[in-house]
């Protein structure tokens, strides 16, 4: 094989592999990416039962309940227009998880319309809000701004 040919074949093979990787990645992304839902969206057009998605909203005050096993909790996540989705989560609640605060739940809907959360992301610290919760509530934003400027003149 001539030198030029070898180079060409190498380049073509490398390109084919990379192209294959990209195609595969795009195909997989369309199927495996987990979509984000607000409560009102989940009520209007719910995802397929069992499909991995995320749900973001406010934990409704007074809705947090612990089941008798002591480790499973249920609560309601609310959004705009009186939408509400019941959520069940088994595990230790994350730091700073409180009623009336924002939460992003990773999980899936079950057949009964309850969102089964595998993981909860609460407001991480005073300076960090899950991106999905940005702009959820003006009151909160104002409070955040207040908090982040404490100690600064």
């Amino acid at each position, binding site marked *: 094989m001539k030198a030029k040919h070898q180079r060409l074949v190498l380049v073509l093979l490398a390109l084919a592999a990379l192209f294959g*990787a990209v195609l595969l990645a795009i195909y997989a*992304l369309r199927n495996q*990416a987990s979509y*984000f839902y607000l409560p009102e969206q989940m009520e209007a057009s719910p995802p397929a039962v069992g499909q991995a998605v995320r749900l973001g909203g406010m934990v409704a005050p007074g809705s947090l309940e612990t089941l008798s096993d002591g480790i499973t909790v249920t609560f309601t996540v609310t959004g705009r227009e009186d939408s509400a989705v019941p959520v069940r989560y088994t595990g230790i609640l994350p*730091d700073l998880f409180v009623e009336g605060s924002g939460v992003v739940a990773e999980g899936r809907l079950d057949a009964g319309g309850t969102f089964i959360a595998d993981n909860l992301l609460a407001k991480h610290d005073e300076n*960090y809000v899950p991106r999905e919760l940005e702009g959820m509530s003006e009151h909160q934003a104002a409070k955040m701004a207040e908090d982040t400027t404490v100690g*600064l003149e």
Partner: protein
Amino acid sequence: MIAELGLAALWLAAALAALQLLGGILALRGGTESDIAGLTRPAAILQGGLVALSFGALLWVFAITDLSVKLVATNSHTMKPLIFKISGAWGNHEGSMLLWVTVMALAGALIAGIERRLPERTMQATLAAQGFVALGFYAFLLLSSNPFERLPQPATEGMGLNPLLQDIGLALHPPTLYFGYVGLSVAFSFAVGALLTRQVTPDFARAMRPWILGAWVFLTLGITAGSYWAYYELGWGGYWFWDPVENASLMPWLAATALLHSASVLASRDALRVWTIMLGVVAFSMSMLGTFLVRSGILTSVHAFAVDPERGSFILFLLAIYIGGALLLFALRAGAINEGERFSVASREGALVVNNVMLSAILAVVLLGTLYPLLTEAFDVRVSVGPPYFNPVGAIFAFPMLAVMAVGPLLRWRKDGFGRISKEIALVAAFLLAGIVLLGLLFGLAILPLLGLSFAIALAVASFLPLRGRKLRRVPIETWGMVVAHFGLAISLFGMASESAFTEEHLAALEEGGATSVGPWQVRLEAVEPVAGPNWTAIAGRMAVSYEGGEPQTIAPQSRNFWAPPQQTTESVLVTRWNGQLYAVMGADNRGGRYQLRLWWKPFVTFIWYGGLIIALGGILAIIGRVRGDLKRRIVRRKVAERRAEAEALA
């Protein structure tokens, strides 16, 4: 005063970077003998000193908690232990960018100081490129993220550091990772320098190789440390979350791994010239892309310190200039670089090409997965991409790569046949198949962990095959380096596969005195006690844990409340045995007298990080071998020159 000194040093350093750039360019045009060309190296060295001084000033204001400096006031607190005050200096956007340019300037000073193997023109071009890159980051630091900014009025107390960062991990993980990220800037500058002077030679690869290896070792250590830190600090029980920031460190690592393999082909065989240059550009581009993703706040992450659109666009601008410029130069010059040596498919080079292509494919997969949420957001669709995407799609390319990695080192350079090593191939294949069949039948594992464990076993055996039939004492150190690094990868893979195959998790709500079990462990919650620290209070669950009914050990995981900033964190406790770890997390809530415990038994999980350390050790051995070989060659050359001079004198 100290803060102003630091700022002044930084401005001076920026001016020197400009001088370095100018000197390099003039040297390229005029010739390396001109006066200004003589200034390039001293400028780089002095610049390293100045930036180090500036960084020292930042450490100082953090150490004494100078609350008139805005950065200290927003990120530190007088009541924090000294070690966290100091490490807090880079636990924020401005400080970490200063650390970045410090490492970069020191690396630049080092090449200017000691690298004398390459033609002086190439060196001048390399230093000019290094100066150009540094200049952009100085501009970013000085114009949009000044770490030394004063407050009009000193604050009375600092706002404190995120408690998750108040950990020894912060002292170690970011500097190590930055040494790696920025070390790749040297490879980038070398690549650009070589492109400018069209001197892509084995010598160039040899000069670049220790830098790639060094950067790669630091990246490996940084990723390993970061992974373990996230594992024990977050209390989620996972070691890798495919978080964008984790990906941002993985991508340069993948590129650097490919680069160091292709550079070794170039150094030994003078092949893959263009490809090596390309990877040199890509590797540092990935570092910068990572910085952009992390620092711009464009992605959600615990690592995103501040969401500031101005900064994001600034870094994006830098990114466009450097990557775009380098790729343009590449496009213009790549055709002018001569064809390298040829090789057949069944050869060491052939195997390394497969390694490179597979690594690049994995890199593409990770890159797309990381950027996909940004793309969809442009269409107002919010998605997140996690393990269900990365694990299987990455594995499609990783496993073929591992197979080639097992037998590639056995092949000879240039031309070989698989027939010559058929016994070894059969041995590795036998281990692999035996692993798949036995583990599959015994445990009925899912496909990825099953393949992972089998490949790990086969690769661990295969990694030592290059030593067969050789006198171990006479094996070069760099060959040991390769063997050790490949073995480390097998160990790490074994840990990952074992973690995903055999982890047992148990959630329990216990009263004081209650007992439960997870895997082979019995756990009894003896008491729940309050604990106070310097800037936090906590409740600690004292537990007696015993492995398979053996002697009980006492552990006390905590749920901590920090005051400044107010935040709750979980302090998990790990009980390490040779064959795995017990991971215990305590919940803060007391529901009707019952406390929540989350327990994991993770067999062989520690192998993940041992493997990472072994990989880094392999890299260190390779550096030692290469540098030693280089020194020897220099000494021989000097002796030959001396002899010749003597002979001439005698004559």
